[in-house]
């Protein structure tokens, strides 16, 4: 589904991501673990075409992100770490805007908006301007907009930050359901417990370099990573 090969991204002289390769298959919830500033967000942003990278290739569903950016973006949804949405729109206008961009027919979108807004208890606030939303409400709206068009790949940057326990639980269920239907999820976190309970596979990144990929058991069983885990737990 998502194939990253030898990705390198520099900010000036500093390498934020250094020769990183990853493969995320359909049906996988893939956790991307690392401490703050390790290069998680840079990798995620590069994978969804927001950030231009210096070297490497990224393919989504077999399509090259640089050669066919629009086709790749049609297959994915992205939720950033900070949901800065269009504050001048109401919640419903934002969802309709996203639905229009993805060409979702009226009846289908209304059904999905109804379903997910009810699940996240956001229906009553859909007419409100986004500027009046709390951080958690914006995060919920970003999640709903990501699920609107049934993307094959969902990329999320620290998706549970700001969500209440009920919404977090709901999101985890939706992630599992999405992958059970053949979709893939690539998300970043620095909370080991979340990765342990949710992910089929994890990758650990430190100072821009990938240091381990595998199932959580495989990764946790690697004694050489003890220091990394201690650092993450301390965070």
């Amino acid at each position, binding site marked *: 589904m998502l194939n990253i090969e030898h990705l390198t991204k520099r900010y000036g002289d500093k390498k934020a991501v250094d020769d990183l390769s990853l493969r995320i298959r359909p049906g996988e919830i893939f956790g991307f673990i690392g401490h703050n500033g390790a290069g998680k967000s840079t990798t995620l*942003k590069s994978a*969804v*075409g*927001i950030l*231009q990278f210096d070297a490497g290739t990224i393919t989504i569903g077999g399509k090259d992100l640089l050669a066919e950016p*629009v*086709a*790749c*973006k*049609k297959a994915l949804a*992205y939720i*950033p770490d*900070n949901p*800065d*949405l*269009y*504050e*001048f*729109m*109401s919640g*419903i*206008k934002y969802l*309709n*805007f*996203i*639905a*229009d*961009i*993805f*060409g*979702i*027919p*009226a009846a289908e*979108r*209304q059904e999905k908006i*109804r379903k997910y807004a009810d699940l996240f208890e956001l*229906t*009553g*606030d*859909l*007419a*409100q*301007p986004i*500027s*009046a939303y709390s951080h958690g409400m914006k995060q919920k709206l970003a999640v709903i907009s990501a699920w609107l068009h049934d993307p094959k790949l969902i990329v999320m940057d620290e998706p549970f930050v700001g969500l209440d326990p009920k919404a977090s639980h709901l999101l985890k269920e939706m992630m599992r359901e999405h992958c059970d239907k053949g979709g893939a999820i690539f998300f970043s976190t620095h909370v080991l417990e979340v990765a342990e309970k949710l992910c089929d596979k994890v990758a650990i990144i430190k100072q821009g370099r990938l240091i381990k990929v595998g199932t959580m058991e495989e990764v946790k069983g690697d004694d050489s990573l003890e220091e990394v885990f201690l650092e993450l737990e301390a965070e």
Partner: protein
Amino acid sequence: MLGLLLKKQLTEVFRSYFYDAKKNKMRSKPAIALWIVFFVVIMVGVLGGMFTVLSLSLCGSLVMADMGWLYFVLMGGIAILLGAFGSVFNTYAGLYLAKDNDLLLSLPIPVGTIMAARLLNVFLLGAMYSLPVLIPALAVYWIVAGVTVSRVVCGVLLLLIITVIVLLLSCVLGWAVAKISLRLKNKSFLTVLAALLFIAAYYFFYFKANDLIRDLLLNASVYGEKIKGAAYGLYLFGRIGEGDWTAAAIYAAATAALSALVWFLMSRSFVRIATSSGNTEKQRYVEKAVKLRSPFSALLAKEFGRFTSSANYMLNCGLGVLLIPALGVLLLLKGREICLVLGEVFAARPGTVAVLLCTMLCMLVSMNDMAVPSVSLEGKSLWIPQSLPVKAKTVLRAKLSVQLILTLLPMLFAVLCASFVSGETLAVRLLLVLMPLTFALFWSLLGLFVGIRMPLLNWTDETAPIKQSGAILIIIFGAWGVAAALAGLYLLIGYRLGATAYLAIWTALSAVGSLLLLRWIDSKGAEAFEAL
């Protein structure tokens, strides 16, 4: 602490002068110097020049009639109007809507310090507009009446008093807008309506200014006595400029007392207004039928939504929507007389009337600049268009289309009016339609080009990209410069070609420029947008 906060705000306002967002690094010293020179030329050269001419026309006669105080009342009044006009619409946004209000309030900084930093910013903005009136006014007076210690000291004091009055007026009006905004729905449109009434009054007096000044100079002694009798405060105000220590002391004390009162009133409500979400009541969601729109239509609707959601954006970048058709109506009503008078004045340069009509229309194009800040206004939401499956060129074309729709439609009406009243040949009438329209197209494209090349994405107050960025200055004053060149070049050498050929050349240049810019926006511009 206050200095630190002020530095942060001013750095944001003037960031594009020091920092090249495209190259992600500081500009070189020569480039910074060039930007500052450009800014000074605009403020001192254009605005200062205009008011030097006005000061020269008023000062001599009034000083000779021993009514220097009336000269200062007039020039001071203009400075207050211009300063308040320039900053009032930003005071509300700058004081209460700054995105970092919550952050600063959470830090161990006294609320008074935050307020003072915001107010100093408003003060500097107001001063930026009133000083180009006051400095030439004082200089001309000192030259005409002579320099004495009392005149210089009191003159400088008058300058300070006026800039503080501008600040107080802006604060009171900004505070009133904030209070109203907390209670009203559709506040953007209501703010725009109120502002338009203010602007209408401003232009009414502006157009009447020549008659008023002539009348005033002829009857200066009569008016002078009337003002002294009915509004002694105004007389005292004018006396400050003449070097009257008592008047200066009274006004300095009164201004200080008023400042304290305004500070007291504002500090009581600052935190409540700045942290309010501004909602009157919760709007109930009712599911409505929707239609699937194309991505371009969705983006266009989004851009229109952005434009109409902000009174600040509409007022600073969309006045042409009203002023361009207003010029058309004016031409229908008075156009023939104006054309006859201009025709007689420029009888030696046939075709000048048509060129001047085009000049007026081109100058008004500068009043619509919504494409310029449209890229910067994406701000922290830039990830949305960048992550969606739409080409960057479609996003940019949606931004451009808002300006084209809101400029070309009013312009079509205005050019048809101009063509109708011009009394020129068919070819010139046709060019009177084509030239301003192609120029409006070219200038809209140039606005977007400059907006892409000089983005300002990390703003905390939308006034920064809308009003204070280098991109906006270039486009507004650039249009004035080009329009002036259109008329000036014709009067110098263009008349030898005749209006038809001259306007045809400008039309062709605008069309070619438009094509080149459109090509750049679709290719390099789209790449630059993706790389932001």
